[in-house]
């Protein structure tokens, strides 16, 4: 063991001590501050990066138009790597350095972890990347909102579509063995039987499972008309799809929001053709009349992923809530912002969502079914905008 190596390790250890000295920035004016724990890296990075762009772009647009009653919106965020501990650390760091009014959280776990803290602070509302149905409860989570339909509602939109197209169809549910995956299972079964649909198979795949041949065998035996995947981003859906297609079953495959990005499906190729899914927002390339989409395409000439739309719409809801709260002459805090948010009704999103939307409970229960066209590499609408009544 020679000295230089030891010195190296010592230097490494010493470096930590040095960086402990870091004074928080203290720059405050009357701007409205939106904070964010964003998964810019890690397993959810593809969404996090898009979300960041979408939010920043919308705030830029809003600021150009004079901000909120003349007050500029400032967006401060840090990377979390999609780990709850990191998200909490970022939250604590940002809140101790800024006077934050609204926040974007990156996961269900983080939303649930920080909810009591939000309640205690009472000075902000929070949206995020999680559509967990559990969060759609204004009693329990008074300061949280979901920028779209929750997972139960998303699957509900799919079920309504199925019941409409093919009454009495049989469906199979394939979910990952995670909180995300298991979220809608119970309610989906009830909802399906209400709509006269038969759930013929329920499959739960362990996380990280790659080989799905035994699951395919089960699906082959039960021959469902529709298979609804939930709790995945991409893998292992393509493998399911290609194996089942090979077997000559004419099953329809369906997914929920996070597995609906068309660039992900483009890489899968031919097998992805005809994949259906629920999407709460328009796609970047949608051709229907939409001033906001035109604006986005002007700012960003290349395709933007679904996460971008999610971030964009989240920012839009936050801005609208703040605008209404300021217009009411209220001081910005959790209660005023939340009641301003809940007052949003028949709100025109500039075409980000095809119909005027309202906030119900903690969510915005609107969505539309799209189908993937492998030839054009795009998702194409196959239904009207569906609003869920409860």
């Amino acid at each position, binding site marked *: 063991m020679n000295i230089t190596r030891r010195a*190296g*390790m010592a230097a490494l250890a010493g470096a930590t001590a040095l960086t402990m000295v870091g004074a928080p920035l203290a720059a405050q004016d009357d701007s409205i501050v939106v904070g964010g724990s964003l998964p*810019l*890296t890690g397993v959810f990075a593809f969404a996090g990066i898009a979300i960041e762009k979408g939010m920043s772009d919308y705030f830029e647009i809003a600021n150009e138009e004079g901000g909120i009653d003349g007050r500029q919106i400032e967006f401060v965020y840090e*990377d979390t790597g999609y780990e709850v501990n990191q998200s*909490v650390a970022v939250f604590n760091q940002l809140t*101790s350095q800024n006077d934050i009014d609204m926040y974007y959280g990156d996961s269900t776990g983080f939303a649930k972890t920080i909810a009591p803290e939000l309640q*205690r602070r009472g000075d902000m509302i929070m949206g995020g990347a999680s559509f967990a149905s559990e969060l759609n409860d204004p009693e329990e989570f008074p300061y949280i909102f979901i920028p779209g339909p929750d997972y139960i509602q998303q699957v509900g939109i799919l079920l309504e579509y199925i019941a409409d197209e093919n009454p009495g169809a049989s469906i199979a549910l394939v979910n990952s*063995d995670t909180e995300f995956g298991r979220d809608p299972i119970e309610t989906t079964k009830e909802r399906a039987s209400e709509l006269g649909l038969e759930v013929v198979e329920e499959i739960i795949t362990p996380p990280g499972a790659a080989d799905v041949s035994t699951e395919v065998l089960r699906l082959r035996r039960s021959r469902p008309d529709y298979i609804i995947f939930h709790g995945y981003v991409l893998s292992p859906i393509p493998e399911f799809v290609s194996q089942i297609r090979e077997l000559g079953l004419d099953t329809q495959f369906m997914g929920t929001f996070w597995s609906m990005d068309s660039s992900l499906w483009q890489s899968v190729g031919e097998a992805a053709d005809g994949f259906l899914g629920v999407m709460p927002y328009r796609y970047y390339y949608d051709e229907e009349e939409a001033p906001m989409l035109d604006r986005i395409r002007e700012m960003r000439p290349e395709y933007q992923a679904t996460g971008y739309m999610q971030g964009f719409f989240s920012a839009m809801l936050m801005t609208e809530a703040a605008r209404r709260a300021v217009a009411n002459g209220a001081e910005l805090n959790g209660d005023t912002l939340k009641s301003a948010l809940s007052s949003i009704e028949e709100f025109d999103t500039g075409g980000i969502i095809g119909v005027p939307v309202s906030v119900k409970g903690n969510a915005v229960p609107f969505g539309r079914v799209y189908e993937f066209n492998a030839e054009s590499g795009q998702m194409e609408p196959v239904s009207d905008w569906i609003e869920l009544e409860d």
Partner: protein
Amino acid sequence: MIIGTAKESYPADEALLTTAPQRVWMTIFVIALIAAPFVLSNYWLYLACLAMINVISATGLNVLTGYTGQVSLGQAAFMAVGAYTVAYLERSLGTPFLLNILAGGVIAAAIGLVVGLPSLRVKGLYLAIATIAASFILHFVFVNWTAVTNGNSGATLAPATVFGIELATYDRLYWLIMPFAVLLVWGAANLFRTRIGRAFIAIRDRDISAEVLGIPLLRYKLMSFAIASFYAGIAGGLWAYLFRVVTPESFPFLTSIFLLAAIIVGGMGTILGGILGAVFMTLTPELLRVVVDLASVFVPDAATLLSPVRTIVFGALIVGFLILEPRGLTEIVDRIRRFFRLWPFRT
């Protein structure tokens, strides 16, 4: 052995802190611990709380791995047991938090005894692998025993309360976590001055010889497992009060590796090692964040590199310390101490 500190009485020989500089440093350290919540910002207090929880768990693992030589890759699962126990008691029975945390430790210890049973038949690598298996089986229990754990969506719990004061902010939680950390580390330091602790060390150094010397292997190995799990359980219980939600994904397998890495980096088989390692490993991600923030001036999109770099640094620290500095940060500290002992007369 330090020259010039002649012991004149048995109590002096048995003391934990044998020299005047040690006592001075300890006093400074204690003052710093007490002053911290009045000085540090919320963010640093949060990190301090997290670091102390990791210190407790790492110290427990150090008892098992560093002192008894039984490698465990299941420490995170025992933390989860403690956290779930606390969550369950808090939610269903509403018992006082001190009782909950102790119960978390005791139940984790009981499960640790069961998981330690394979050490009767297997040791070394095989045992490490058995603990991996145990942690996956426990994970399955957390997901599926919904009556107690609330399954995948996890258990949310109310903050701990003392005389009607809610321990919800980090400056208050600090006063909950810090005493536990101090007491448990102090306890571990004392453990190795007893018959039990010395038996552990004998087992680590050569288990067959230890048995020949009259140390019942199974009993002591199980005891070591129980102590390590007790520490993990307490740490997990405190963790539950810090985050106030426990899900099966709260304590991934990676946390077990993290803790093992902490004692390797800190120095296995020393109390100081567990502390230094856990603090160092907790702060490293934050340190990297600062570095990346600085680098983002020169490298566009530096933020997107953070997570991979963190993973690499994490692995590199384990590999680097094992190859270059097997005795960890403790050895570095010792070297500095030795340097200053005779300074400036000899450098």
